[in-house]
């Protein structure tokens, strides 16, 4: 067992594992019922992350199939019908079932720990959101296996996805998956925002919130602002398909471009909903391995928030080829370029932090360095796509495929893997192997560049996206073969990661509470943190509570542990406000999610499912929210100000 790979000033505190203050509040119920009923943010967060990763593997497998099909010209491995389903499933999986939810689930797991509280706000709602998400994803894959997988692209442009050309139920499954993922995404957003504003440890004023949490906060506000747009779009699509409305039918006064505007008004911020949380992960890892606090905290926060706002002003750059008025083109070009500035500011601040720090080069930091390399390249090709004339040539070609994978894999998957290596010891109590970690990183980094860099050239050479094959005469064969070989390296790398996780879970080196010498509060807890996280709530006096000598001034005691009580603090200054009992574990969110899913899936086939399907949902939710007399009485009795012992 290692107490610490890197010493932190937090070592001045008694070892948390021996500290009664952080012992489990109670033993949580195990077994199947305990599994289904849990409202612990850590259990929900981990299952969310594991599920998201499983979808990453599925989506990656589909990508591998596409690379095999494209490896040589005029390949007969996969026909157009299956290929169209595969690339639609790949994009849909990676965007809706992997990238966005896994970032949110990192927040579900980490935000309460970093803020020094006992649970996430609205934990039953978060449990419900998980079940809705996993059932929605399962529905999509069952449809795919039954050959009714969506085949109109992850962007589902009408009229191709509309009632006239998108025959069968394929696009309905796609549209309904959107409903599933949006419901779960919005609920998590509400929970994270509330947790951040009201459940911070006392003293953690707004200028002491960790940058990771700021990133998640910006992300969740973006989620709440962007998702209604795609919700209305996909609902209109379902109505066009199911009950014959004409939102998108030009023959009846509808407009196919309306779909594009609504979709990209969501779709572009969505890219940033994947990227902004990743920035938070980078801001958590860089200071730890530079052994100094992040330089330019205010600039970092302003940049995160500015990125959030600006991300809503770019959507038209996906539509330049549809013919946009000149003023509009100029505006959206400028906006698309301006958003590079907040990202550049953060990049410069990280470099400044590393420049003046004393760098410890461990696996998590390797992934962040990979992120620098790949993201900067992807960001620069993004500037090219923002330019209207250049976009006319490279839009919808393999250049865009290269660009988007550089920003999404480089900008999100690399930091995410860094985050996995960084927080795995916290979540499991065991270290991931460093040697395998380096192999994992280098194979991914080299494989990624071999797979995706040639695609820039292919795009300029005229290779459009979403084609299931191409003629040998086009001259695209060699680079496609190279790209496929790169993809195989990535597959090997991800397999190594899974091996690494499996080995570490069984026999990995034991991690102490704070193996990296981290800066934020999650490192104060034992690894893995016990149920309920902590007995007493720390009083925070610094942005780096684990590093600053007086970072934790004292502790708030006297919160009930059965049921779990949390300390609610004020939004800006984090003054103690009142105590709140967290809801107890219950099966009702699970049951309600089942009924919700039945209604959603039923409405693919008949509009009456909405009518009759709502009834069991109402029953389940009524049972869920039904007040229990004993709980109400106890809460009334406990409504008194908490006692600050040491502050």
């Amino acid at each position: 067992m290692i107490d610490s790979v890197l010493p932190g000033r937090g070592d001045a505190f008694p070892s948390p594992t021996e500290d009664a203050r952080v012992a489990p509040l109670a033993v949580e119920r195990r077994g199947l019922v305990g599994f289904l009923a849990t409202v612990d943010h850590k259990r929900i967060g981990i299952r969310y992350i594991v599920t998201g990763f499983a979808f990453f593997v599925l989506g990656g497998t589909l990508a591998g199939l596409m690379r095999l099909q494209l490896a040589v010209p005029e390949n007969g491995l996969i026909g157009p019908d299956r290929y169209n389903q595969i690339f639609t499933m790949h994009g849909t999986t990676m965007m809706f079932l992997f990238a966005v939810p896994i970032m949110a689930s990192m927040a579900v797991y980490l935000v309460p720990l970093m803020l020094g509280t006992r649970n996430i706000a609205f934990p039953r709602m978060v449990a419900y959101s998980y079940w809705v998400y996993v059932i929605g994803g399962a529905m999509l894959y069952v449809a795919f296996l039954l050959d009714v997988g969506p085949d109109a692209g992850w962007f589902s442009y009408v009229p191709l996805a509309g009632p006239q050309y998108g025959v069968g139920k394929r696009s309905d499954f796609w549209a309904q998956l959107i409903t599933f993922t949006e419901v779960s995404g919005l609920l998590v957003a509400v929970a994270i925002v509330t947790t951040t504003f009201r459940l911070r440890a006392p003293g953690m004023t707004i200028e002491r919130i960790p940058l990771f949490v700021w990133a998640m906060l910006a992300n969740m506000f973006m989620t709440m602002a962007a998702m209604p747009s795609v919700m209305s779009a996909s609902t209109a699509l379902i109505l066009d398909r199911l009950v014959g409305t004409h939102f998108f039918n030009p023959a009846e006064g509808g407009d196919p471009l309306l779909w594009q505007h609504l979709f990209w008004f969501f779709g572009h911020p969505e890219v940033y909903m994947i990227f902004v949380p990743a920035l938070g992960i980078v801001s958590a890892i860089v200071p730890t391995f530079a052994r100094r606090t992040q330089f330019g905290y205010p600039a970092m926060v302003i940049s995160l928030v500015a990125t959030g706002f600006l991300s809503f002003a770019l959507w038209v750059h996906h539509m330049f080829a549809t013919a946009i008025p000149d003023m509009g083109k100029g505006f959206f070009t400028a906006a698309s370029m301006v958003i590079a500035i907040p990202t550049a500011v953060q990049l410069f601040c990280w470099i400044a932090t590393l420049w003046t720090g004393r760098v410890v080069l461990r696996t998590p930091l390797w992934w962040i360095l990979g992120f620098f390399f790949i993201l900067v390249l992807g960001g620069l090709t993004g500037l090219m796509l923002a330019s209207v004339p250049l976009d006319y040539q490279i839009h919808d070609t393999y250049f865009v495929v290269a660009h988007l994978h550089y920003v999404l894999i480089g900008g999100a998957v690399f930091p995410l893997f860094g985050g996995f290596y960084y927080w795995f010891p916290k979540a499991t109590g065991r270290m991931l192997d460093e040697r395998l970690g380096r192999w994992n990183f280098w194979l991914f980094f080299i494989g990624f560049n071999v797979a995706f860099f040639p695609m820039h050239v292919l795009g300029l050479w005229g290779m459009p996206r979403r084609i299931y094959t191409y003629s040998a005469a086009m001259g695209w064969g060699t680079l496609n073969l190279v790209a496929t070989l790169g993809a195989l390296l990535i597959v090997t790398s991800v397999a190594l990661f899974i091996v690494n996780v499996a080995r570490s879970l069984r026999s990995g080196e034991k991690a102490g509470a704070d193996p990296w010498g981290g800066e934020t509060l999650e490192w104060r807890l034992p690894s893995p943190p016990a149920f309920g996280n902590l007995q007493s709530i720390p009083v925070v006096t610094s942005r780096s509570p684990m590093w600053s000598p007086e970072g934790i001034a004292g502790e708030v005691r006297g919160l009930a542990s059965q049921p779990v009580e949390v300390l609610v603090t004020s939004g800006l200054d984090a003054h103690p406000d009142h105590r709140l009992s967290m809801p107890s574990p219950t099966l009702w969110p699970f049951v309600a999610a089942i009924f919700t899913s039945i209604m959603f899936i039923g409405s693919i086939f008949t509009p009456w499912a909405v009518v009759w399907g709502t009834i069991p949902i109402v029953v389940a939710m009524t049972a869920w929210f039904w007040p229990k007399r004993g709980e109400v009485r106890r809460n009334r009795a406990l409504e008194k100000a908490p006692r600050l012992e040491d502050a």
Partner: protein
Amino acid sequence: MTRRAGRVRALAAGAASLAVAAAALAAPAQSALDPAGPQAAHIHSLWHLMLAMCALVFVLVVAAAWIAVLRHRDRAGGAPELGDDPGRDRRLTRNVGLATAASAVGLLALVVASVATDRALAGLPHEDALHVEITGHQWWWEVRYDDKDASKVFDTANEIHIPVGRTVALTLKADDVIHSFWVPNLHGKKDLIPGRTNTTMLRADAPGVYRGQCAEFCGYQHAWMGLLVVADPPDEYARWEDAQRATPPEPTDATIAEGRRVFESTTCAMCHAVQGTRANARRAPDLTHLASRRTLAAVALDNTPGNLAAWVQDPQRFKPGSNMPPVQLPPEQLGPLLAFLGSLK
């Protein structure tokens, strides 16, 4: 340290050799990097400017990050530092501020260059432009040459001839789903959207055959929805135009006459048109001068008698999901039909 520097050099060498290998490959059939007209040339210059600026920024940022990591390595991992050194932080603030200002200036330059290029694209002289209307279908291109004189209007498909040196104004429409017209050697793409009419202008400055392809995902056969733009010298173009306007003569050969009867009386005539015959449906490519075209099935196949026979009998083998049904005729009908199609010069 040296081992690491060696690794960097090896990486750089690897990237460089990859780039060289890519450049050494055969010239592709359609390319934005090989402009043959003013529109593609404007965009090509902008590409060079952007590539140069972006490459410079990339090298600077990656080098700065790498140096930052290598400057003070700390293998053991010392106690963390709270970073309160006012002098150093002032210096960092100044440097980050300068870098940000430089980025802003660079971005402004790119915006200006981009808008200027867009204006140049719009400024193509078009007083005596040739007007061509293109309608996108799943999965072929309907082409109509417009003229003030209605008797001079003619239709063709998938192969567009244009005169070298003369601006062509394209009117873009879609019949079913969204498509995108893209001939990279001549110009960037523009979408064809149901219910809307778009326009674009291009010009070829050198004779040649420029391949294009649908660039907006449009269903099963998106991959094989190609087209050819054939830029002819003006006199040659005029001859082609005259030939296209001509109605095919009444067949004198008995086999061809029989083939025409088969064409008119079987499923062919339900979708296709041939001027001067009773077949005048517009659901599929106009075949009036089929034999004069270079390719079949939207550039999927070379136009040879063998390919034509194979395509007519089993189009799904070449383009699964295509709207063309297999034509199963007895040999005594198929032979004349193919002869008739082959006669449509």
